[in-house]
């Protein structure tokens, strides 16, 4: 039964991923990515990591993808029309993409033969303990990288505000389509 569940989720995730890559409408591609994240979250659940599954939904599907979709909606990304833009013709683009994908798959195959994945699960005891362990590890052993990561995010936020604020004009609080 676990195998059936895994197969369904894996097919859903791969279908979503193919949807992201092959869809012409950018908004549908973003929604397919949300589907991939949802399937991944359920896979995490099957691997006894419920905390990670919920965080995947809250952070990835619920915040990052909302940001992506806002950007796509507000900037009215049009359908990609192949062959229209000057530069690399569409056939070359497609062949390059296929070659890179084959390289990545090959690399993964080689690495998975070289380094045997142990398949060892994390804490197999109660999940509160695993959240506790996550908290202890994050805030004791890896406290410094954690703080550095939060400063990095702060720098990104300040940079975004500095870039979009121009000529001393204050940012109003209204949400809407802004004429840039």
């Amino acid at each position, binding site marked *: 039964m676990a195998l059936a569940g895994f197969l369904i989720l894996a097919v859903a995730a791969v279908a979503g991923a193919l949807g992201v890559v092959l869809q012409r409408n950018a*908004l*549908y591609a973003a*929604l397919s990515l*949300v589907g991939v994240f949802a399937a991944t979250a359920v896979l995490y659940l099957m691997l006894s990591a*419920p*905390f990670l*599954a*919920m*965080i995947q*939904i*809250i952070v990835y*599907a*619920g*915040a990052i993808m*909302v940001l992506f*979709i*806002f950007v796509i*909606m507000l900037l009215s990304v049009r359908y990609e029309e192949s062959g229209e833009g000057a530069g690399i013709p569409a056939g070359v683009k497609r062949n390059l993409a296929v070659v890179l994908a084959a390289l990545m798959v090959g690399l993964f195959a080689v690495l998975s033969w070289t380094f045997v994945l142990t398949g060892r699960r994390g804490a197999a005891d*109660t*999940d*509160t303990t695993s*959240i506790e362990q996550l908290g202890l590890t994050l805030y004791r052993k890896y406290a410094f990288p954690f703080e550095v990561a939060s400063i990095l995010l702060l720098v990104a936020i300040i940079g975004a505000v500095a870039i979009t604020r121009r000529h001393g004009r204050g940012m*109003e*609080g*209204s*949400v*809407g389509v802004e004429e840039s």
Partner: protein
Amino acid sequence: MTLDWWIEVVVKIVVVFLVVLTAVAYMTLIERRVIALIQSRIGPNRVGPQGLFQPAADALKLMTKETVLPAAVSKHLFLFAPVFSLVPALAAFAVIPFGDSLNLFGRQVPLHITDVNVALLYILALSSIGVYGIFLGGWASNNKYALMGGLRSSAQMISYELTLGLVVVSVVILTGSFSLVDTVTAQQHGWFILYQPLGFLLFLVGSMAEINRIPFDLPEAETELVAGFHTEYSGMRFAMFFLGEYANLITVTALTTLLFLGGWLVPWPSPAWMGPIWFAGKMFVLIFFMMWTRGTLPRFRFDQLMQFGWKILLPLALVNIILTGLVVTLRS
């Protein structure tokens, strides 16, 4: 995973589903009567005794209304958006415990569908998904009022979700677990509203904003945006948004009761079946409070709303976490 277990789970799911849908339907009637009371009029009392068949009449009306599909909408998103709104609202009931265990048919039946160790995170995750329904519905309608309503509503929901999440963190500091059953059992020596009055107020206000309730209902403001993100929806599709909104109301009041008002705990020793009754009673007090504010307060302007969420509620929630952490550390 025996047959007994399956039967128990399926029966619980069916019962909770039916009870929630009935409650949502009658919530509309109760709201109209309560608001009428506040506005010195009577409200619906014609359809059946005291208007008790009004929800059935409303349901019939919505089902038989012509479902208009405007020509210029993005068809798939338009049809799918109400689902994104309704399903998370109902799915939250999978982890909400209504009481302790009861002895039914010779077995101890715990009064919740599941008791996962990440129940609070699950509910936060579902509220993050609920944002999709609103702005996809607004965008797919290809209508400037709907788009503005959708964008405003999703900005509002995202902002106030932060406050809710931080208040949940301070409750988890007191409980030590994300499980809702553990949260309620930890309140046996005093409901958390006594230990976290600020948290309770923040959660109440934040959840009113989260479910787009007056005074935070600018995204659906009838006088400004026609009907906001559900302008172009009619018939059953509108009914799904509508149901989702009231189901969210029930979810949010249930969550507030579980986190701050002791869930099913009765202040004096009583039999186990009194638990769900008290739970419903506490929920109704909060629901009445929400309807009371709806009938009484004017709505926030959108920039006031955003300022309130980011500049007042969020810092207060952070202060709440710091205070809670300090007190817990100093006492242990």
